[in-house]
């Protein structure tokens, strides 16, 4: 479903992602793990065609993100770290707008919008303005936008950041339920989240993929925490603070 080969992104001369390779079969949920600034967001932005790779290739459902970006965009749902909401639109209007620009056929729009609002538990706030709702709601509105066109691949950048515990549980349940219909890539720095929602994990450190595999394989001989700290810690001690923050861009 997703094949990434030697993917590299440099901002000027500063490398953000270097020689990243992995594949993700259909129906799996991949957790991108890594400390802040490791290159998780940059990787996702390349997969979603928002950023062009400096070198290397990435294919989503067989379509190259650089040369067949338009095809990739049709089959992809993306929730950036900050949900891309228009504060002046009502929830319903927003999801309807997203459905339309994602190319949902005119006669299906209403049905799809209702369906996805129901799924993301937004039915009771559908008439409220996006800008007036709390972080938890905004995250779910963004998720509704990412799912409304029934994408084959869903990419979620830190979907649970800034939510309260109850909201986190709800969003995680929602992500787990996506597995039946979608292939999911999500990024996080919360380790238990990977254990709960993902089937595979990829640990990224300083722009390089360090460990990749199914969750069972990764947690066979040591816990995910141990493995994470083991692979990330050594480099972090020497390089802490040097890493350019991708969030600042």
């Amino acid at each position, binding site marked *: 479903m997703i094949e990434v080969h030697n993917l590299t992104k440099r901002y000027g001369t500063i490398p953000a992602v270097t020689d990243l390779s992995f594949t993700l079969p259909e129906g799996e949920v991949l957790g991108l793990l890594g400390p802040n600034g490791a290159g998780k967001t940059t990787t996702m932005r390349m997969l979603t065609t928002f950023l062009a790779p400096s070198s290397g290739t990435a294919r989503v459902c067989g379509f190259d993100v650089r040369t067949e970006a338009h095809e990739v965009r049709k089959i992809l749902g993306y929730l950036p770290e900050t949900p891309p909401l228009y504060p002046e639109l009502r929830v319903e209007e927003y999801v309807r707008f997203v459905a339309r620009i*994602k190319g949902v056929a*005119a006669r299906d729009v209403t049905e799809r919008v209702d369906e996805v609002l129901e799924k993301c538990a937004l039915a009771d706030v559908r008439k409220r303005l996006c800008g007036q709702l709390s972080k938890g709601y905004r995250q779910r509105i963004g998720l509704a936008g990412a799912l409304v066109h029934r994408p084959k691949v869903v990419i979620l950048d830190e979907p649970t950041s800034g939510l309260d515990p109850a909201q986190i549980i709800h969003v995680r349940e929602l992500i787990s339920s996506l597995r039946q219909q979608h292939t999911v890539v999500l990024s996080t720095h919360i380790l238990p989240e990977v254990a709960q929602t993902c089937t595979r994990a990829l640990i990224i450190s300083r722009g390089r993929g360090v460990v990749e595999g199914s969750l069972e394989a990764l947690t066979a001989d040591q816990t995910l925490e141990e493995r994470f700290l083991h692979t990330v810690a050594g480099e972090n001690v020497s390089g802490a603070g040097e890493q350019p923050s991708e969030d600042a861009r």
Partner: protein
Amino acid sequence: MRAVLVLAGKEVRSAFVTPLAYIVCAGFLLLSGFFFFTLLQGFNSHLSQAALLRDDCPNLNQWVVLPFLHALELTLLFLVPILTMRSVAEEKQQGTFELLVTSPITPLQIVLGKFLGVVSVAAVMLLFAFVFPLVLIVFSDPEIWPIFSGFLALALYTSAFLALGLAVSACTRSQTIAGVVTLVLLLVFYIIHAPAPKLGGRLAEVLNYLSPSNHVDLLFRGVITGVDIVYFLSVMLFGLFLAVRALEAQDWR
């Protein structure tokens, strides 16, 4: 085409559910009403003077319509940046740009949608301002043709500048920068022919051709020439082209 209309619809909706469109329209109407009133007053006193001296009756078009159109020309110059500054810069600022770029729509569709949206808002403004010459038509007897061709000129002029403003807005994520740069650009355009008489020669011709004021002049007087129409359309297309290129180049950084 459908995507363009969806985007344009969203632009118009956003403009009219936030105070922006109302404030810009209100400001425009207040200013144009003020100009119209002042000009009419001037015309009135002139009329009574002419009656005393048994002169020819002064021309309404020359005393009211023409200066009124010129006043609107200048007012629009200041309002265009306010209309366009947010269009793309705000999307970049609030993160919705990522949504647009990762959707199956092309930069051209995004630009056309934005342009159509902001042109619609400007059209509403101009339509309201048409009330003033309508008053003249109802209560007096001006030449009608220059009024229509004058508003056509304003529509072309505004569209061309909106396209330029859109291009500037597509280059930055700061609305303030987009607004200021657009305003400076339009003001430079407005006075670009000023040094022409001193310079003379080929350069003067070029500067004179580039000046929008030179191209509205004949239209304001009721003469529609191809050169003027082509000028405004080419500025507009140039602006849209730049905006598309700016969006296409977004991942160059």
